[in-house]
Every structure is written in C-alpha cells, then in structure tokens.
C-alpha cells in the first residue's frame, strides 16, 4: 500500500503540476482521511477509559476539509491547524503516537504535558497548532508568511479558522494585515454550521463567509468541504497564487460538524435528523470511496488494506503511548524563558 505512505506523497512530483493528482496521491488522500478517523475513534475509546486529559474534539465528517487542503501545501510550507484539523497535522507529518501522547499529556508528548489536544507545533515539519483564543493564529501566520515575503522565499502559509472564529478581531486584523502586505497566505474558513451551539446565522449576517474576501481586497474561493478532491483543488489554486506573489486567498469550505463541540456535548440544539442526513448522504470518506472505485478503478480490497494498515498504525501508536510516563512535576519550571531556562521552585515545593 505504497500510495498511503507519507513518503509517497513527498516523492510524487505530480501534485506540483496544475493541481493534478497521481493515482498514488489519490490513494494517499484516502489513507490520510482513514487514518484521521481511525485515530480519532481510538481517542474516543481512550477518552471513555479516562486516559485522556481535557475534552476531546472530533473532526468526524470534516476529514476531507483537513486532509485535502493540507495535501496542497509542500513540505517547506507552514500550516496552522485548528481544533478539527487532525488530518492536516497528520499529512504534515505529525505521527499518531505524538497525537495520542499529546492527548494524554505525557512527559514525551510534543508539549511535554503542558498543553492539550492539537496545541502543538514543529517548525521542522511546518506546522503550528492553534491556541484557544480563536483567530489569533491568523495574525501569527501573517507574520510567518511575512517572513517568506521579506526573505524572498518561495514558501506559503495556510491557516484554518472556523465559522465562529471569523467573528474575532484577531482574524480581522490578521487577514487585513496579510492582505495589505500581500503575504503568501491562504486562509481557510471552515464553515461547519456551528460554533459550539451557535449556528452560523447567529454568527454572521453574511450569506457566505467568502463574501468577506472583497472587503479585504483578497481573492475569494469556496468549495464543497466534503469533497476531498475539490478541497485539494481549491486550496492548490490558492497556494499557487500565494507562491507566485498573488497574495492572500480566503477560502470557504462548507462542511458539517457531526459530533458535538466536544465529546461531552449532546448536540441538543441541533434540529432532529440533521446529523443523520449528513452522515448518510455526505460522509467525506464514503463519498471518496465511491469516487475511487467508480472513477479511479480502485478495488475495495485495496481500500481494505489501507484501513487495516491505518488500524495497525494506530494500534502500535496506542501501545507506545500507553507506556509513556507522566511528566515530573518540577519539569513545569523549565522553558518559560530561554535564559534562565528554569525557574527556582518556591521554598515549600522543592
């Protein structure tokens, strides 16, 4: 199942050309979506077993949005993920064991137990997880991509935000700054219908979030967020535009949050049948399976093999993570500053 390997994507020359995806790329897309879902399902199990710290946020039904868009950036590009972008991080090289450890807040987790969920970063692999205050990463990514522009590097940035986060001042200031500076930045607004319990109609009076593009003088584009190929293409267009000096694009991806805001949320506010309809008719993986089988002539058995592989990887990662120790308390005192890199403990807590 070579197509599913991360290396396969990296070695493929095809994606760079006009958004054309090779057959193996297309299998990769399936793999990443499947891995995302399998890994999240495992996190749900661990959550139920009280092995995780903090809430658990699902991207069920939004895997195409995360995976398709992240697939459109290159290794040296930088993306900033949001709550429901597990898929983006995996594509960018974060590993399942890191993700599980991060949710368990272990000593060897990417943040050494300091922060939760997808709040982790690795500039070597080109990703910065978000912080909780929504919208802030748009401004930070304006700066990341400003550095590309200032240094004349052919790199681009990609930042995600939810329909809810479009209401924040940080989003506004960040995208406007990037627009004026013509930073090579792609901003993806994931319109999944809700911000926590708040439906989009209470978030914005605009008909479409992409209508905000004109107000910033940037290119606007949108796509069906549950069609992984469409997501890839719309993002690739924007990435190419950014790389060739065309500045910012605001993309609206229309998708749907099939679980509650986090696992504790019973979605009492969602009209009856809505979730079920999206699950039955518009699951991004189901839809893509049909595309692969009908158009790409992939065999179901090939897909099954990918599924098995994803499960095996998640199994191995789980086992590894479950052996990870918790951080030692006094490690909390390190790295607030570069210098001194460690604070003195209070006398009563040595």
């Amino acid at each position, binding site marked *: 199942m070579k197509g599913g390997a991360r290396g396969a994507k990296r070695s493929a020359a095809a994606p760079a050309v006009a958004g054309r995806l090779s057959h193996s790329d297309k299998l990769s897309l399936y793999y990443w979506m499947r891995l995302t879902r399998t890994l999240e399902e495992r996190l749900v199990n661990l959550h139920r077993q009280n092995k995780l710290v903090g809430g658990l946020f699902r991207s069920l039904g939004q895997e195409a949005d995360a995976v398709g868009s992240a697939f459109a950036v290159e290794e040296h590009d930088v993306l900033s993920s949001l709550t429901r972008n597990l898929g983006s991080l995996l594509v960018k090289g974060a590993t399942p064991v890191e993700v599980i450890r991060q949710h368990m807040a272990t000593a060897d987790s990417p943040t050494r137990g*300091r922060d939760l969920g997808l709040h982790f970063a690795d500039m070597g692999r080109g990703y910065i997880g978000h912080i909780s*205050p929504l919208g802030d990463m748009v401004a930070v990514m304006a700066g990341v991509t400003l550095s590309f522009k200032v240094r004349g590097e052919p790199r681009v940035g990609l930042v995600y935000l939810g329909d809810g986060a479009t209401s924040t*001042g*940080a989003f506004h200031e960040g995208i406007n700054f990037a627009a004026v500076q013509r930073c090579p930045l792609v901003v993806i607004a994931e319109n999944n219908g809700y*911000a926590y*319990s708040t439906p989009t109609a209470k978030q914005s009076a605009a008909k479409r979030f992409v209508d905000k593009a004109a107000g910033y003088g940037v290119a606007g584009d949108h796509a069906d967020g549950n069609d992984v190929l469409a997501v890839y293409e719309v993002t690739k267009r924007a990435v190419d535009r950014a790389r060739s000096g065309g500045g910012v694009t605001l993309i609206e991806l229309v998708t749907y949050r099939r679980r509650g805001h986090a696992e504790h949320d019973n979605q009492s506010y969602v009209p009856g049948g809505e979730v079920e309809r999206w699950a039955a008719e518009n699951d991004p993986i189901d839809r893509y399976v049909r595309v692969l089988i009908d158009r790409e002539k992939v065999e179901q058995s090939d897909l099954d093999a990918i599924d098995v592989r994803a499960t095996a990887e998640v199994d191995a990662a789980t086992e590894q993570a479950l052996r990870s120790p918790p951080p030692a308390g006094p490690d*909390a005192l390190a790295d607030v500053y570069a210098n001194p890199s460690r*604070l003195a403990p209070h006398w*009563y807590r040595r």
Partner: protein
Amino acid sequence: MAEITYLEAIREALVEEMERDANVLCLGEDVGVFGGAFKVTEGLQARFGENRVIDTPISEIAIVGAAAGAAHMGLRPVAEMQFADFISCAYDMLTNYVATSRYRTGLACPMVVRGPSGGYVRGGPFHSQNPEAAFVHTPGLKIVCPATAEDAKGLLKSAIRDDDCVLFFEHKYLYRRIKGVMPAGDHLTPIGRARVAREGKDLSIITYGATVWKAIEAADQLAQTGVSVEVIDLRTLAPLDDDAIVATVKKTNRVVIVHEDTRTGGIAGEIAARINELCWEWLDAPVLRVTAHDVPLPSAATLEDFVLPQTADIVAAAQRVGTY
C-alpha cells in the same frame, strides 16, 4: 431549605434579578439555547426570551463593548465570558472604555462580566486562568471572587445592582463541588467586605476563591498540632477590605497570603504592601506568600499539581510563619 450548588446559586441570582428588574439581561457565547458551556444560564432563555438572553458571536470585545453601551442606556447587562481566560481579548475595552467612562464623561457602566476562572481541573493554559490581577490594577473596576455558594448568589445579586462594572470571577472547580443553603429572602452580600471563614488566634491566612477551601483544610491540619488559624476570605478583590486585613493582622500578628494566581504581580503583593503601610508594627514575622509558580498553567496532572498551591504548601508556610 435544600442545599444547592455554587453553580445553581449563581443561576438563582440571575433568575431572581431578572425577575426583579426587567432591565437585567444576559449575553454571551452559547448562553441562550444551550444554556452556556457550564450550563449556568440553562433555562433562562426559555424563561425570559431571546431579547433578554442573547447568544452572541465569538466576540469578546463586542460583548463587553455592547454591554457597556446598553448599560449607558439603563439596561443592566450580565455578560458571560465562556471561560474567564478570554476576558483578555476584551482587555482594552474593559480598561480603557468601561473603567474610565464614568470618570471621564459621567456615563456609568452598571454591568457585570462573569465567567468561570481558575484551575485544579487540568484545563491547561487557556482554560484555567485567574485573570484578576490585571483588573485589580485598573481603577474603575470592581472585582469579586466568591468561594461559597451563599456568596456566589449574594455577591452576584449585589454586582448586578451595583452602579459600576463588576468583574465576577466564578471558580469552575467549585461549580459543582461546593454547596450551600441560601439565606431566605432577598439575599445580598455586600461588595467590598471580606469574611472571616474561620476564626483563629495564632496566625492568619488571607485568601479567596478555591484556595479558601485549601486554607481551611490547612487550618484543620494545623489545629491538630495546636495552632489556631484564622482564615480570611476576601470575597472582593477591588475594593480590598483593608479593615478586615488590618483586624486579622492585629489579632494574630502573623500572616500567610495564599492565591492560586501566579506569584509575581499577583494580588498578594498588594496585600503585603498594605499590611506594611497599615500595621507593620503588629507583625511578628514576615508576610509570606503561597501562590502558583510563575509559569503558564500546564495541563498534565503532575505538572498542574506542582504549579498550583496545595494544602501542604499552606501548612508548610504557616508553620514557618508560626514558628518565626
């Protein structure tokens, strides 16, 4: 009368005040249909309608700014921050507009900004903050941090009736862990007055919020070693109750100040300075502080436990001050 939780006490205060005064309204993210992330406002929209319980966009600047504008017009808005941590997004609006409006132009801002603060729940750096220090430093704001269910209700009712902006920091660790029997009638706890949570004579612990309960635990342990500890629950951080602070210092002559917030620049420093100014001669030992370490609050249990003040830390500090 039945016991209710700290959280229910807050809801009861909201309901009573909304019943009493048609000008009171609630606004914030997910406070309406959903009843709030912690369900504090559950049922309020059904009861009072969409005009008085308003679901807002994710816009802390606008929530606070709109509350101020509505307050100018005679409404009494109660704005919720989904987590108190996000009040940082409205820092400019609160410190520059709300806090100065009466002083500069005579326009009052009778409003409450409330929300869950504090740690001990493995919430990590953005869902555990104690944002009070920066606002205690802001003239024009009042700050309330209830530790008991009774005070949560009585202080919120007073805050809603106050003619200035009150920041009301609830403690999420206490929401469902602490219960109390509400006094009958229109129960108002005065803003600006501390409470003697436990009488004692050898040493005073001055604190507020969740650490009141840790201080009481520490006092229990110290009692077994024959040390009688007085615990002062400040309840209001701005304005500080100097009289209560001075009274306990003059009584016990030894003080430990405890807070969950990080140490440097936390309110313990202010209290230490006031004790110096107001009753330095009455001290038989230096004022010591037990606080969180100066780090963003980490998520892992081991780390959070290490960073936040624990009962044993309070005991150790009390023993040191007590035997000084």
